[in-house]
């Protein structure tokens, strides 16, 4: 067993990147979907939920087919010098895709809950659509979005099925905490497993609690 720091830092790096990517894409797609008036909307939404319904290992398998050296997309990536298979970047891609629906759904529900009249009030004040988004919709939806993003972070931290497939299990290079835990459990090494599980759990709890506090809570104190 390597030191626990290597997989822990790797896990945080991978989950951090995956969360950041999902924050951007998930929120953007959710906003688009929540404003899009079309019957195709729910279909697109359901299809974007699919990464959740496929067993991660299977998803990882398809990612491998797609991004592998012999995959269409992988060959192109290879030609521009990007290598996803057996790299931590591959783990980021896997975790991002697996956690994407969590941010999407949460953000969409949050955006749809924002009072449309407030957005109109901003428009009348001459504020651009970009301004309406950043100054009204986003802050009012923040609570729901953050809930989704934290879920995505936890999921990315726990992801190992798809990661294992595409990023492989190269000790010290792509072995995330989850993969290490899996290994330990498989090997019947309960002591190591328990220690690693505790480390992941504590890390996750700490990150969730700190992140939860970063969002300003503007609910006024109740008068009673």
């Amino acid at each position, binding site marked *: 067993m390597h030191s626990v720091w290597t997989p822990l830092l790797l896990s945080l790096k991978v989950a951090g990147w995956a969360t950041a990517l999902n924050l951007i894409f998930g929120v953007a797609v959710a906003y688009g979907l929540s404003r899009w008036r079309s019957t195709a909307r729910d279909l697109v939404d359901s299809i974007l939920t699919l990464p959740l319904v496929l067993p991660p290992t299977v998803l990882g398998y398809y990612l491998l087919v797609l991004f592998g050296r012999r995959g269409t997309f992988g060959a192109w990536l290879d030609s521009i010098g990007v290598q996803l298979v057996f790299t931590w970047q591959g783990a980021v891609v896997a975790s991002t895709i697996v956690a994407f629906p969590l941010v999407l759904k949460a953000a969409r529900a949050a955006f749809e809950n924002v009072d449309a009249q*407030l957005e109109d009030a901003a428009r*009348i004040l001459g*504020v651009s659509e970009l*301004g309406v988004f950043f100054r009204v919709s986003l802050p009012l939806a923040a609570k729901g979005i953050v809930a989704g993003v934290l879920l995505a972070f936890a999921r990315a931290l726990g992801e190992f099925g798809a990661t294992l497939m595409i990023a492989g299990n190269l000790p010290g290079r792509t072995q995330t905490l989850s993969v290490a835990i899996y290994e330990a459990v498989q090997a019947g090494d309960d002591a190591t497993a328990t220690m690693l599980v505790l480390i992941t759990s504590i890390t996750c709890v700490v990150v969730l609690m700190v992140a939860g506090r970063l969002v300003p809570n503007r609910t006024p104190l109740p008068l009673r």
Partner: protein
Amino acid sequence: MSVEIQIQKELRAGERSFRLNISFASESRRIVLYGPSGSGKSLTLKAMAGLMTPDSGSIRLHQRLLFDARQRINLKPQQRKVAYLFQDYALFPHLTVAQNIAFGLRSGALNLSRPTEHPSVQKWLQAFDLKNIAGNYPAQISGGQRQRVALARALVPEPDILLLDEPFSALDLSLRERMRKELGELQQQLQVPMLLITHDPADVEALGEVVFDVRDGEIQGQRTL
């Protein structure tokens, strides 16, 4: 004509439908819409602000065409340059009083960083007696305070027209008088038309030049004071 409006809209809600058929024109810069509850006053203002799209007709402000169904012209709310006081205020719950008032001073993605230092924010905080609650959130202030914040927010961007939906209804008499004065002065200074919805005869007297009577979705009469 400074204001010229002629619009139709059929609104359905449940089994009921309401037909709005408003048409009036006026050179006056102080117009009052007067009429019973549910007659269509707020909807008329919403149409002018671009929050409600009529089925047919047109809306003209000075010589600017804001809406024309036949020519398929429909300016965005952002382009109409109107000040609009919502009947239920529509304050931003996540922004302080000062931030709410300063909201229209920036049109981009960021709020004004020090709203209380901006001269027009200061002016209205002073004029409407809101100085000591400048840092409070809408949930922490009283009903009348909210109404004043909403009015200040609408007036700050110096618009082409003032659309005010019962701007003083939550205020006591002395405050009402004071604000009527402030508003009258602002309107004179900007020289823009003002469309006011009110139930208070004192408002009509102080701020109205022409009064249109709205009833069942139509203009039923007109008085000049």
